[in-house]
């Protein structure tokens, strides 16, 4: 498959604007500015591109909703606050191909009708922040950002916003709260950011990887894109492979390849013997079938979720209780505390799992954990709380024996 998202990775000085434009970069922007904004959105809708941050919402629809709002001031925000354990795909783009992202963001701004864009990058990404800052300066100097871009009536500026170490800020409403100078607690929806986002104005929030598909869609058309990979959720996907695998890394592959193909053909096999994998980071449920196809629908059918495509491989030497406890430690630490079911639920689950990992579990608490997972899924305000128990609940269902062995005799 022709690489779309990582085509420039590996080129010397790929982060430089000369190298980017020398390889045909910013031509898609030129084409988009020659189209009507509505037609840009129509192409994205035709492509069937869905958000790559985890929620898989149709990207074209999100832009259309934002464009249709009557408010005069609107914003587009790029979510570069990648923090799901196991996810490191956006980092590669920010570091190696920042102009691909900037070009996409300008096209997005034009499509929804705003002259102001933001990139919210997690604070620990020091080098990436510096690289993007440089790229913004270069793009300004070349006239791809600023007033009357490429001689058109369209003007657009980008401002960088640094996160300060809070996983939950990757959730879009929490991210906007954070930009407004508050604690990053998610808001209840509706209204969605497309109606009322940053400073109460309609705001399109797009993940880095999602945006980076846009230039290719502009250049080759939505129909072309919709034929790549799986018909249900077309396009390339950046899979982040980590855990107990021989060759971890980011792999750009069509949606719908199997877990086995990813691990064996690209990751050079499991370190040890395969036990299970989390296909969408610690927010997802464990998968044990290596023949599961990695696209949104197939992974959902298998009882898990593809999320951001963070595939964490676990081998047979690893205790599944240790895995569950690690995930719940993470969520207990990152729960923002706004809704009690998540704040208290993650803590109680951590207490129970700590007992199990010390060999002092109580048998009846396994059902309690499963029930807690359901309650949190139904009632937590945001995705963090809804997904926090996924890994734990699937561990109990798939590897119940391991838990039973840790029940206090």
């Amino acid at each position, binding site marked *: 498959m022709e690489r779309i998202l990582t085509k420039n990775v590996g080129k010397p000085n790929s982060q430089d604007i000369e190298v980017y434009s020398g390889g045909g970069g910013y031509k898609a922007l030129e084409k988009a500015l020659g189209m009507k904004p509505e037609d840009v959105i129509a192409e994205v809708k035709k492509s069937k591109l869905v958000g790559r941050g985890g929620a898989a919402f149709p990207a074209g629809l999100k832009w259309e909703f934002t464009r249709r709002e009557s408010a005069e001031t609107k914003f587009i925000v790029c979510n570069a606050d990648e923090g799901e354990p196991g996810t490191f795909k956006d980092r590669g783009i920010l570091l190696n191909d920042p102009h691909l992202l900037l070009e996409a963001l300008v096209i997005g701004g034009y499509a929804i009708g705003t002259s102001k864009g933001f990139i919210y990058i997690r604070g620990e990404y020091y080098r990436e922040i510096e690289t993007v800052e440089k790229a913004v300066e270069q793009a300004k100097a070349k006239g791809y950002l600023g007033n009357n871009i490429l001689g058109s009536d369209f003007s657009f500026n980008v401002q960088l*916003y640094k996160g300060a170490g809070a996983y939950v800020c990757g959730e879009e409403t929490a991210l906007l709260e954070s930009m407004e100078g508050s604690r990053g607690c998610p808001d209840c929806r509706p209204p969605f950011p497309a109606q009322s986002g940053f400073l109460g104005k309609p705001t399109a929030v797009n993940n880095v990887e999602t945006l980076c598909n846009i230039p290719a869609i502009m250049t080759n058309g939505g129909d072309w894109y919709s034929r790549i990979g799986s018909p249900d959720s077309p396009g390339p996907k950046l899979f982040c492979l980590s*855990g107990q695998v021989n060759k971890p890394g980011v792999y750009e592959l069509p949606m719908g390849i199997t877990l086995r193909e990813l691990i064996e053909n690209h990751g050079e096999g499991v370190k040890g013997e395969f036990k299970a994998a989390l296909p969408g980071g610690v927010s997802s449920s464990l998968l044990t079938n290596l023949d599961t196809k990695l696209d949104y629908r197939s992974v959902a059918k298998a009882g898990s979720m593809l999320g951001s495509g963070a595939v964490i491989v*676990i081998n047979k030497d690893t205790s599944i209780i240790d895995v569950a406890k690690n995930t719940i430690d993470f969520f207990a630490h990152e729960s923002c505390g706004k809704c009690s079911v998540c704040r208290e639920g993650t803590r109680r689950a951590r207490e129970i799992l700590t007992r199990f990992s010390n060999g002092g579990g109580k048998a009846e608490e396994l059902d309690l954990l499963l029930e807690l997972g359901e309650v949190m899924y139904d009632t937590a305000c945001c995705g963090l709380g809804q997904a926090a128990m996924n890994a734990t609940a699937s561990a109990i269902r798939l590897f119940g024996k391991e838990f039973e062995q840790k029940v206090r005799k």
Partner: protein
Amino acid sequence: MGISVWRTKVDAIMESCGKSKEALLPCLETVQEMCGYIPQEAITYLRENLDVPSIDIYGVITFYGMLTTKEQGKYVIRICDSLPCHLNKSDGVLGIIENELGIKAGETSAERRFTLEVVPCLGLCDKAPAMMINDKIYENLTDGSIKEVIAELKR
């Protein structure tokens, strides 16, 4: 550390973002970066200039992992213990460093040279186990490489 060190930069941020709550996080991040923590003078200064009550400023500082009102060591060591690093023995990394420095996670050494933290995912999962010391990345850690790094910083 003198007030003037961060004040020029904070003033510049308020100049470009406007004197509103949206400037709060960038201002706090700048003070944190320059002083290694957020001193009371900075909180007072931001309260007066941004018209945000102190309680909200404390609320923001305590919410974000990279902000603190406690003085940090010269070297802030952040060890990742999220699942990909955990599966690659990040607890061993922590053990070695605790031993080498004689402090536990969450503590700062007596002479304020080191602060040790266990943090969630740093996005270095393909190079696990990994850690950061200030803004520098250390990846694919082994017992030997960890001891080498710490010995270097102790000098």
